[in-house]
């Protein structure tokens, strides 16, 4: 069995959580909440902490990685059926990451490049990493986080140019509570991508200490997403942020540090690219690993080839244009994520608790019964 260090798992969880919101959350929250988008991130602290607790509870009270733990707690039949659904849910995240980056790249950098060629170039390194094994992928992700994450944050800070106006975040009050609820729902749905910890956590050296790392990841996610949401608002205002395709990219385009550092969007792309590789590789691994668990296969790696083709083609087939992509990101994926990655694991908590309670009762009855 492959082994991950806690720091590797931390890095994996961080890219899983932070990459997609870094690219699109500013626009989506500006569309819902205008200048109050950052409040939705603060509002998602409680749901996020709850999710961290749920995942940690499931991890510490299960002997098999997800989705095997479904069979462990819900029985083999129901467990396999739900596990089968999860294979496609994880696969959908793979497709989403591919499409999102392809659109990010083709909208801004090389609009003339065929999407098929670009998809091949994104899939190929992840394919290689997965065939090589989880440990190699984890090591690459570790390096990526240590180098790309600080740079990504630095590029955001560069966006705070002379035209930055912090008063664009005002007024603080006067927002629609329903819109805030919608924003919190949206942010929480992307926090639920931390569900991969249920699959990867058991590979860790010290699963009992995972809560610390999960909290640290959540904190880093809050920080980076807050920055990614606030900086476009103070630089462009809520209206422009909501109509730009990728506000973060516009930040990089407009960056001009002391009339010396500018035209740095290609650096932005080169920072996002390894991030996309990471989230792609992680969810692709979880997809194949879930299939291995559900179908009882000997090795997940045999599925990497067929799923590579499926992912590449699905990215073109399922998402015909960028307008549709944003509908998916804002309205369809959050439902899927919340139901499958948040509500269903939350439902398992009382199931496990009752099972443990029953086991404790039967144990105590056995102890209390007089020996024959």
């Amino acid at each position, binding site marked *: 069995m492959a082994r991950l260090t806690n720091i590797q798992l931390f890095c994996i969880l961080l890219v899983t959580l932070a990459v997609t919101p870094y690219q699109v959350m500013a626009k989506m929250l500006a569309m819902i909440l205008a200048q109050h988008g950052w409040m939705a991130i603060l509002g998602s602290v409680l749901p996020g902490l709850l999710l961290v607790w749920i995942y940690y509870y499931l991890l510490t009270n299960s002997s098999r990685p997800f989705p095997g733990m479904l069979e462990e707690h819900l029985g083999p039949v129901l467990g396999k059926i739900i596990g089968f659904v999860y294979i496609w849910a994880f696969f959908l995240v793979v497709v989403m990451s591919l499409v999102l980056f392809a659109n990010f790249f083709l909208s801004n950098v090389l609009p003339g490049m065929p999407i098929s060629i670009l998809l091949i170039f994104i899939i190929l390194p992840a394919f290689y990493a997965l065939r090589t094994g989880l440990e190699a992928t984890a090591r690459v992700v570790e390096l990526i986080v240590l180098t790309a994450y600080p740079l990504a944050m630095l590029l955001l800070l560069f966006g705070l140019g002379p035209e930055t106006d912090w008063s664009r975040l005002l007024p603080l009050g006067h927002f629609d509570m329903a819109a805030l609820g919608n924003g919190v729902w949206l942010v929480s749905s992307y926090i639920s991508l931390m569900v991969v910890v249920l699959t990867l956590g058991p590979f860790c050296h010290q699963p009992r200490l995972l809560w610390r790392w999960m909290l640290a990841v959540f904190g880093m996610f809050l920080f980076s997403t807050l920055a990614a949401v606030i900086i476009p608002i103070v630089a462009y205002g809520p209206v422009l942020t909501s109509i730009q395709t990728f506000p973060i990219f516009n930040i990089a385009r407009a960056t001009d540090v002391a009339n010396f550092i500018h035209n740095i969007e290609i650096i932005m792309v080169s920072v996002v690219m390894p991030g996309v590789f990471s989230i792609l590789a992680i969810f692709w691994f979880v997809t194949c690993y879930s299939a291995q668990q559900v179908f009882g296969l000997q*090795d997940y790696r045999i599925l990497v*080839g067929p799923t590579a083709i499926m992912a590449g083609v699905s990215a073109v087939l399922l998402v015909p244009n960028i307008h549709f992509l944003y509908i*998916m990101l804002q309205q*369809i994926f959050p439902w899927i994520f919340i139901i499958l990655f948040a509500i269903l694991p939350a439902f398992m908590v009382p199931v496990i608790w009752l099972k443990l309670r029953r086991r404790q009762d039967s144990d105590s009855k056995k102890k209390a019964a007089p020996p024959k």
Partner: protein
Amino acid sequence: MFTALFFLLVALLVAIDVPDLRRQKLNKDLAVYTIFMLAAIYLAMVQFYHWPFFNPLLMAAMRMQSP
């Protein structure tokens, strides 16, 4: 051209994966692999030859967009 390249790729993947599975007599693994590979080929054909394809996400998006 693209179709030929695609099938060359499929043949290569099969050549890499299948012999080991057969040698170890992992028939269930082979069956799952076959189903996934057929699904991949079908999706590719849908894309290459514009076969009809039901996209449930597109339907959901249409419903959400309609008033």
